[in-house]
């Protein structure tokens, strides 16, 4: 097999290339994964009881991969998470409170009831608010990084995630190619969870391994084991460092399974039992806890305490947000413009026009 650059760069993981994962990072990652898991379980309950309207799309089983990108980004970086990135979002600074508010449409949330669920962010803080159209965020992250380059700011990294299905879009291809041409410090993580909604990989792409695409885009490719927190932390950590130090775009591909339906309306009965029982189906949260316990980086008591603390916070936040005001249509200005007022008159002073 001639995989060219992609395979050259994909050395044995967690050995040759991979930096050590620190105790502190691993503990923090696990704690965030736990928060994401417990929060999302609550979101599912709220959806089933009719409190959340529309849809709920969970990242169960993908927390290790997701958190590993968010945790390696820092203030000043650009981050565009996607559907299954609750953990990564929290690592980047999103909160249980704002997640709840956005799902429940609270007028106090960052999206003010105007957009909901996973479609949230604070773009002015480098946290892009995804649109549903898959693939669209790769190029917007590129744009954020270009702006920094124009301004002479160095050291920032952009990170975004996508499912294997999203890699079939024209937008993804254009974004990756552009990133390669501009040699931008972007890390694109592909969560290959084997199914795009109900569609299996053999109806999605014809190459044996999505990692070979890195070669085509002229970017560095790396592979991570999607449900192994230590491996994800180490591979993505290295990808982020490489991008930060000027080595250009990085494509990380990780195999895993989502351990829930596409959304909470979907029972995922199309995922074969054998696949669920394979190593792909291992629950990254359980695996991470076992590893941390084995390494002595976490005690059983701590794990149990964290569980309780997080459950309590999620419950309290949920009751609080359920009492918060909904947006009041009569107080909306119904104005999509920033330069026009609600009567569609210019907001600029006369002299400027």
């Amino acid at each position, binding site marked *: 097999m001639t995989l060219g650059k992609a395979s050259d760069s994909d050395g044995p993981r967690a050995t040759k290339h991979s930096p050590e994962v620190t105790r502190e990072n691993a503990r923090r990652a696990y704690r965030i994964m736990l928060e994401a898991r417990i929060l999302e379980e609550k979101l599912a309950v709220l959806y089933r009881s009719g409190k*959340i*309207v*529309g*849809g709920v799309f969970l990242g169960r089983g993908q927390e290790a991969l997701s958190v590993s990108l968010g945790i390696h980004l820092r203030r000043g970086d650009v981050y565009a998470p996607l559907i299954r990135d609750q953990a990564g979002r929290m690592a980047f600074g999103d909160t249980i409170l704002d997640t709840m508010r956005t799902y429940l*449409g609270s007028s106090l949330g960052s*999206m003010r*009831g*105007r*957009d*909901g*669920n996973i*479609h949230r962010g604070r773009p002015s803080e480098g946290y892009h608010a995804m*649109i*549903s*159209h*898959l693939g669209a965020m790769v190029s917007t992250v590129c744009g954020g990084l270009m702006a920094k380059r124009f301004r002479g700011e160095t050291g920032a990294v952009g990170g975004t995630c996508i499912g294997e*299905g*999203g890699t*079939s*879009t*024209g*937008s993804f291809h254009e974004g990756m190619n552009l990133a390669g041409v501009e040699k931008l410090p972007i890390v694109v993580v592909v969560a290959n969870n084997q199914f*795009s*909604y*109900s*569609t299996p990989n053999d*109806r*999605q*792409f014809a190459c044996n391994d999505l990692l070979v695409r890195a070669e085509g885009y002229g970017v560095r490719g790396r592979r991570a084991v999607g449900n192994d927190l230590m491996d994800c932390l180490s591979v993505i950590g290295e990808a982020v460092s490489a991008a930060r130090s000027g080595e250009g775009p990085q494509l990380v591909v990780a195999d895993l399974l989502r351990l829930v339906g596409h959304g909470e309306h979907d029972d995922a009965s*199309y995922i074969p039992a054998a696949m669920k029982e394979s190593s792909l189906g291992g629950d990254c949260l359980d695996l991470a806890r076992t590893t941390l316990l084995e390494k002595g980086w976490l005690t059983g008591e701590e794990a149990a305490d964290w569980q309780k603390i997080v459950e309590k916070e999620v419950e309290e936040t949920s009751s609080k947000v359920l009492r918060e005001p*909904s*947006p*009041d*249509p*009569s107080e*909306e200005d*119904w*104005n*999509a413009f920033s330069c026009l007022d609600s009567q569609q008159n210019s907001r600029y002073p006369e002299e400027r026009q």
Partner: protein
Amino acid sequence: MSAITYLEAIRLAQQKALQDDPRVFIYGQDIGGFGGAFKATKNLAKEFPGRVLDSPISEDAMVGLAIGAAVEGMRPIIEMQFADFSTCGFNQIVNQAATLHYRTGTPCPLVVRLPSGGTPGGGPFHSQSMEAIYAHYPGLIVMTPATVEDAYTMLLEAVALDDPVIFCEHKFLYYHLKADKLPETVLPFGKAKIARQGRDATVVAYSAMVHEALAAAEELTHDGYDIEVVDLRTVRPIDTDTILASVARTGRLLVVGEAWPWGGVAAEVIARVATEGFGLLDAPPQRLNAKETPVPYHPALWGTHRPTASSVANSLRQLLEL
């Protein structure tokens, strides 16, 4: 036979099209064994092996494939998972499908099914009504069925037509609307329909808004008014004759659309009535559309963003006082 929903009518029309015409195939995301995000192709992949296929998430290529197949004489139906994602196939639709016959004399018979319109909690990217955008382009037929019967017959007609058809099926109607049986006869293509007869004012509507208009008309009977409702059925071609004939009877016009007002179907109807039937009007023609922001997520905002029976009734009361 138990009641047939609007969604089931769409499924049955596709089943019939596949049965009757070997040139028909359906291509779209998750439409095979899974039966589609809304189950509009449930069991069809099993019933018609190899003709109902799961596509990659590649809207541009999906439409391009349909165009190429149509040129070869096939009759493809493309299911967009949501109308909103058709923007990713926009170039192929408006620049290739719409122009093909004019440029080359070769027809381009394909159907793009757009699950359209708002539902509570749908938000900005799963709620859009895109009929005006596609109707803007010469060469595209744009259908907006409002009833179970029309969903069925118009989809069959869409497959039979030699031009590309953008079929806007309303998600809000999928489960709510029911009919006892499907029609055997079809209204002529491109004809609007008087959904309710009246003499005091005409409401022109299409798709889900027909039902809001009918409910508003009902409400106004309590005020002693008799409102006529015209269901456009197709927005392109647009049946100006039926609209003008109705306005000739009532003298007053309100056009209702779920999409944004700017350059939209309501604007087109009003422009036609103003230029061709100015003398028929007893009052300035009015329109009621969605508010001019993206479709909001919160159900309370969404319910105000789109026209509803009560906002249509309010607009009608104002119109009747002019």
